[in-house]
């Protein structure tokens, strides 16, 4: 590159320079990873990662995973009045109506037989309850003078039975039974997501897909006012356990927040970007002021805007949209003004020579150059804002983000959490695909 002398002086100087360059590169090649490593070690202790094992709650992980794939039915006997109720997850809306019992239960008069599978059986007879363990033998619990009496048939009490005078709990891998003075309760675990399509009060609950198809196409009307298909859709839509209607609305709200926020921000930022671009605004102070406004709006950050806005407008999708709108108008303003500064002047000059005024020059000389950049940026933001709208929804109280945080806070509806996560991921991927497709159509198709 540099002109080298034919003399040895120049050669050795070049060699020395190359040597220094190599030494520096070598330093970088080893120094940089070493620096990163040192930083990671510092953080390892700053974040107290060694203590993490102690804080991690493994039983929570077990709850989470088992709840992902299974649900439990509570079979409980009120020991004061002898009433027996069956409730999925012990919830009110999952309680079996009068005269309807789960498949694993046989009722004969006063006594109830629960089949837990693999030879495990539980029988309620009056106040007494027997857990029949295939390896251990029968375990009998009864209420004597208001206390819980445990009879293991003379064997020592194993560690999977937790017994005191007021409460006995038997936990096996097939289920769990407990007895107190007020209540005898058995948890029966089954695989799957319970009542996903129809709740227990729907006439379609428990029917196979074939039966449902038959009913929908040709069966007699269960509800004379509506066709079977309409009642099916209605029962599914108004499912109280999974709240499909609310979920769909929440997803729609989230997308609405992202859409309104992104498009609104683009509309606000576009005219302001002209003020911040050097080739359109010759007044330096005005340019400077507009740019600082953009920097300020971006710097304050979505989190703070969200807090301020939710104080003024209360929770809901409008607050979320406005938060996205304000934050992104700063980013868009910066991006658009940079794009404007890179505009090719020739087209504008050509228009000027035909006597076009400044609005016409902007419309026909600048916008056509700007539109592809603008559209692709807007679509990128729309996609990433769908994700942000989930988080913002959790703060302002709207959309799927709110439902997700609520479900996680209850710490027991993990199957619902999974459902929401799947829906969120599908939603984001869909927006990703749609925006990618639109980008391709609008930008490449037009050029």
């Amino acid at each position, binding site marked *: 590159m540099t002109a080298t002398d034919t003399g040895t002086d120049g050669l050795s100087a070049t060699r020395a320079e190359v040597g220094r360059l190599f030494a520096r590169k070598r330093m970088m090649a080893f120094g940089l990873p070493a620096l*990163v490593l040192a*930083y*990671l070690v510092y*953080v390892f202790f*700053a*974040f*107290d*990662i060694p203590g*993490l094992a102690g804080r*991690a*709650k493994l039983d*929570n*992980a077990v709850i*989470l995973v088992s709840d992902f794939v299974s649900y439990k039915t509570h079979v409980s006997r009120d020991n004061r009045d002898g009433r027996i109720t069956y409730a999925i997850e012990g919830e009110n809306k999952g309680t079996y109506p009068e005269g309807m019992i789960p498949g694993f239960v046989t009722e004969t008069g006063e006594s109830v037989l629960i089949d837990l599978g693999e030879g495990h059986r539980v029988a309620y007879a009056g106040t007494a309850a027997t857990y029949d363990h295939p390896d251990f033998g029968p375990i009998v619990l009864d209420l004597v003078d208001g206390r819980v009496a445990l009879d293991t048939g003379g064997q020592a009490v194993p560690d999977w039975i937790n017994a005191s005078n007021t409460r006995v709990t038997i936990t096996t891998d097939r289920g769990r039974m407990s007895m107190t003075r007020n209540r005898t309760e058995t948890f029966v675990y089954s695989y799957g997501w319970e009542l996903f399509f129809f709740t227990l009060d729907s006439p379609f609950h428990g029917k196979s897909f074939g039966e449902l198809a038959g009913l929908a196409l040709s069966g007699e009307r269960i509800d004379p006012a509506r066709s079977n298909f309409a009642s099916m859709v209605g029962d599914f839509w108004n499912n109280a356990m999974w709240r499909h209607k609310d979920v769909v609305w929440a997803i729609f*709200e989230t997308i*609405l*927040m992202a*859409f*309104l926020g992104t*498009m*609104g921000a683009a509309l606000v930022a576009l005219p302001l970007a002209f003020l911040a671009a050097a080739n359109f605004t010759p007044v330096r102070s005005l340019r400077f002021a507009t740019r600082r406004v953009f*920097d300020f709006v*971006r*710097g*304050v*950050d*979505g*989190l*703070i805007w969200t*807090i*301020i*806005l939710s*104080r*003024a*407008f*209360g*929770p*809901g*999708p*409008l*607050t979320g*949209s406005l938060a996205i709108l304000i934050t992104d108008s700063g980013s868009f303003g910066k991006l658009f003004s940079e794009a404007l500064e890179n505009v090719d002047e020739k087209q504008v000059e050509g228009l000027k020579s035909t006597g076009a005024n400044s609005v016409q020059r902007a419309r026909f000389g600048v916008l056509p150059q700007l539109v592809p950049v603008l559209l692709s940026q807007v679509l990128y933001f729309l996609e990433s804002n769908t*994700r942000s709208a*989930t*988080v913002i929804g*959790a*703060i302002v*109280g*709207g959309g799927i*983000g709110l439902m*997700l*945080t609520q479900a*996680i806070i209850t710490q027991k509806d993990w199957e619902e*959490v999974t459902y929401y*996560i799947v829906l*969120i*991921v599908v939603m*984001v*991927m869909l927006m*990703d695909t749609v925006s990618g497709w639109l980008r391709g159509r609008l930008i490449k198709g037009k050029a």
Partner: protein
Amino acid sequence: MTDLTAAGASRPVDATRDHYMVLTRRKRMYGGILIVIFIVLMASGFRLADARNAGGFWDGIHMFFDFPSEVVAEAWEKRANLPELFWQFVPSLIETLNIAAVSTLLGALVAMVVSLLSTRGLARFPRLIPVFRRMMDGMRAIPEIVIALILIFLLGGGPVPAMIAIAFHTGGALGKLFSEVAENADLKPVEGLRSVGATWFQQMYLGVLPQVAPNWLSYGLMRFEINIRASAILGFVGSGGIGYDLKIAMQWGTGRYDEVVAIFLLLFATIVIVDQTSSHYRNRLVRGH
């Protein structure tokens, strides 16, 4: 074209002009329809959002400055406290920055490997390219808050859940950008290294990395800016850092607004400084000098 002009007659020119006008008119009509649809969507969207909001837009608009002015007024009264409060919140700020930095680093490391594995021409296992691509899509699609909240349930509070959540997302997001850069890398150095028997790792480290490093670093810096914001937000929603302090101070409400202002100012200053510094270095990296 030459045929047309050679014919010399005015009729083909007229036909061409008419055709052009028809096309232009159709284009304008489509444009007009699109704009009308867009306006209708925006207007009805805002009305719907307004209807589903707890407080309406017109009721809220005059309260927009109430809260900030209340906060600023209280903080102004107690302005003597501010310097001390700044010092009090610096450790949380450092934690937030650490979360952002570590998650950017870890995410970038994952992204480096996955992006090389999913770039045509460089991949170690060309058949698995679609698998790694879908993996990155999946990592990008899961919002940070989902992972963070689940990890808080499993690991308890603190900075680690937020760090893992952001790193996961960063891995996917940077992976896509990194792979776009790596696709344009010159393959000759790689072939040269391969011809002398270099392993895949050596080919990547010595042949590809020097070519893509400036662009990768620039994307990494941009991600760091984004991750500072994300880490503040995640702190507010559930764990560690200055976001959590902000939430506590906000929940307390009147009486602790001086703390709120101190945190606002710290966060604002940090974001602006990091943005300016990183954009300066990004320009240098990408433009060369």
